[in-house]
């Protein structure tokens, strides 16, 4: 690959940052694998920040109460991508729907964290920490999952993005990468700095992991097969906050390309020998209090593009992969007075992957009849998100049940693991 092409790819990816996209991942060690197939298993967690409206992700067009609650922002049955007699997918989720038709994507339509405060920040804390109580721990459940992996499959961490999300903070030092110029880890300056940081418990491990990841990044970028056209809306020169807005206004083709390439680059990391097997990715902008139809269409277009990029980029490894998209809470069952929805409770999780067993919805559908609504306001949760995570970590990633219950999701007995998904 020429330098110029590489720079273009980096620029396209850099623009993903302007869309509120960031990727986070944890990896496996370069140690020999002794657990056979388990050693190939991959898990990607997509966090949709801001409170994603599940009733827009998988509109329950067959539910008798749906149209009445959603009024002007409701989908007509013929406008959604049909899943079954009750549910469809949002029309922007074309890649997800194609996978669903192959039995490689399912929905959990009424999932929630154990938090009920309807605060973004509390609910994200609970989602990422895996605790039942808010601010109970400063480590994330994906980090503790790595810690709990058996010695033969001990993983090291890696994430892409400029900041560290809680879900990956903890004892295992995660590596990280985001598009940029690249650093030669053998150069003099990095070596001198490693020396300067050798007694620094925060900067030392973080810097060392950052250097290691740079070389892997080169391979991941090279692995991106699609040629890249120069991007007009490259984030760098735009005024603060204006880029995302202008991308929305034009239907966001540039954003969609950036999102797909981000997914493909993440896949490029994951398919490498010794590459990460556990990843987390954030997509923000879901707090749709007003005029939500257009915003959600744009965000779901990006989400679909990221998932599509992952799917195609992983190639053969897709069969070893499960991707789960979750949000901190759903939104009110009724549309509010400003064409949007306010903070609610249950939402939809998407579960995708070649490792997934085909099947219907995950968890029960409580329905939208007024007595079924939580506090006469929100879609009621029927599934604790921790149960979904525990099931996937146990069945798919092969984590020990006892470790899951005691260390990764302590005090989560009431959230029974959802088994049999893979």
């Amino acid at each position, binding site marked *: 690959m020429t330098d110029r092409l590489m720079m273009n790819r980096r620029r396209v990816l850099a623009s993903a940052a302007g869309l509120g996209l960031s990727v986070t991942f944890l990896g496996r060690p370069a140690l020999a694998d002794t657990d056979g197939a388990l050693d190939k298993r991959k898990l990607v967690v997509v966090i949709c920040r801001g409170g994603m409206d599940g009733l827009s992700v998988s509109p329950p067009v067959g539910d008798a109460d749906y149209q009445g609650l959603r*009024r002007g922002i409701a989908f007509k049955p013929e406008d959604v991508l049909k899943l079954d007699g009750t549910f469809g997918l949002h029309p922007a989720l074309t890649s997800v729907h194609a996978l669903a038709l192959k039995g490689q994507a399912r929905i959990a339509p009424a999932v929630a964290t154990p938090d009920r405060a309807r605060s973004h920040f509390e609910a994200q804390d609970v989602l990422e920490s895996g605790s039942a109580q808010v601010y109970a721990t400063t480590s994330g459940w994906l980090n503790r999952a790595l810690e709990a992996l058996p010695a033969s499959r001990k993983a090291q961490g890696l994430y892409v993005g400029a*900041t560290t999300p809680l879900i990956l903070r903890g004892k295992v030092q995660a590596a990280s990468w985001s598009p940029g110029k690249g650093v030669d880890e053998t150069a003099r300056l990095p070596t001198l700095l490693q020396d300067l940081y050798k007694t620094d418990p925060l900067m030392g491990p973080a810097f060392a992991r950052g250097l290691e990841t740079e070389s892997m990044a080169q391979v991941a970028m090279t692995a991106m097969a699609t040629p890249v056209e120069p991007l007009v809306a490259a984030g*760098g020169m735009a*005024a*603060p*906050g204006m880029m995302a807005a202008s991308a929305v206004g034009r239907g966001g083709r540039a954003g969609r390309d950036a999102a797909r390439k981000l997914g493909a680059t993440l896949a490029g990391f994951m398919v490498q020998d010794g590459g990460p097997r556990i990843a987390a990715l954030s997509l923000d902008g879901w707090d749709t209090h007003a005029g939500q139809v257009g915003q959600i269409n744009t965000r779901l277009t990006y989400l679909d593009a990221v998932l599509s990029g992952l799917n195609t980029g992983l190639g053969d490894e897709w069969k070893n992969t499960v991707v789960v998209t979750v949000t901190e809470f759903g939104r009110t069952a009724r549309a509010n*007075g*400003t064409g949007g929805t306010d903070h609610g409770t249950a939402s939809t999780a998407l579960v995708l992957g070649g490792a997934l067993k085909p099947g219907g919805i995950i968890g029960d559908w409580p329905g939208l009849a007024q007595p079924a609504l939580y506090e006469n306001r929100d879609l009621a949760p029927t599934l604790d998100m921790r149960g979904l995570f525990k099931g996937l970590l146990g069945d798919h990633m092969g984590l020990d049940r006892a470790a899951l219950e005691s260390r990764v999701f302590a005090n989560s007995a009431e959230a029974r693991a959802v088994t049999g998904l893979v």
Partner: protein
Amino acid sequence: MSLPSKDIMAALAVTRFGLGARPGDIAGARRDPRGALIDQIDGRGADQPQDNPETAAQRFVAMRAYQELRREARDDGDPRTVAVQQANKAIRDKAAADFLARARLGASTASSFRERWALFWANHFTVSGAKELTAVMVGPFEQEVIRPYAFGRFEDMLVASTTHPAMLTYLDQAQSVGPGSLAGARNGRRGLNENLAREILELHTIGIEAGYSQADVTEFARALTGFSVGREDEDRAGQFVFRENIHEPGARTLLGKAYRPDQLGQGVAILKDLAAHPATARHVAFKIARHFVADDPPPALVARLEQSFLKSGGRLDRVALTLVEAPEAWEPAATKFKTPYEFLISSWRLIGAQPSAFERITVPLIGLGQRGFSPPSPKGWSDMAGEWCSPDGLIKRLQWSQAFAAVVADKLDPNEAASAALGARLTAPTAQAVARAETRREAIALLLMSPEFQRR
């Protein structure tokens, strides 16, 4: 609790309380480090980055005009006409100029504690360019809400924030309609939006630990209906207006207290009670201590600030003084990890210069995950080391430091620069690494990336 030496205190005054040392700053603060900070507390407010700046109202009108132009172009089938693109650039340039002016003030001011104090409050009352209409009003919001009241009363800042067009658009208040109001009764499709009410309770005032209910949020949202912004075709275009016809009539009960019907006065009365609530004092005290001193701040410091806030009736000049006078705030070990903005501004201060163009500062900030004027949520930017000291973040800081050093190093004596930047906080290993560097560029990059320069 004893205080550290004058030398350490001088370095802390400039780098922890302030935004970093310009050449000579630490030496200048040595005689009376606390006094140097106290002198910066100014009842007239924080400094304004620009003379005769545009107002939020002017920006609102300009953005509306641009949006109208774009809509017409779209209706005509070509949304990317030259006129639209020029208008887009003109309006983006305004926001860019605001941000550059603020960065230049931060890099150049002799009163950088005052500036940090203002930045803290701007982050407390976050408005973000993540929303198009709000994006051009972030700078004016700081000018009109934050800076004038930075050393005034918290209550005044809260009311100013809650009645400012940037906040009213950012958190969707402007369109919230009381279902029982005249307009609500006429059009059943319009109704409440509780976004601003919830975030005022959770983020601006009492905090979620205070334990309010969904009913409190909804009641507050009802009380706030009518808080709106003048449309472009109205007299008060782009300014706060109270719209009686969308205000939910009736008495409200919030946190156990009844509020009689009083139009605009009802919402203002609630805001004043929230400002005076003990939970607000606690919430604000903790955030100040966390921002200035440690991610897990000393409880004794939080208690002092809380008392100061309560006793003074939320006078922020008194709270700032309490912070400076608190011995816990002068702990010699620096644990606060600089945010990207703080890191970049302190680097310009180190060389006694200012960013010369918007691109110089916005491009690295985007790479470091802190796009200017665009916090990702109403909670504002994180203050925590765990968030910013990431592997990728450090690599990006190194890349920027190398590029910065390549431009500036040849004019600097690295040993002098290290001493001037960190004073008594400079450690032997860093001093040695700087002294032994092969080139000035290497020396300056090492200094910028040193553990003590990355912290404050």
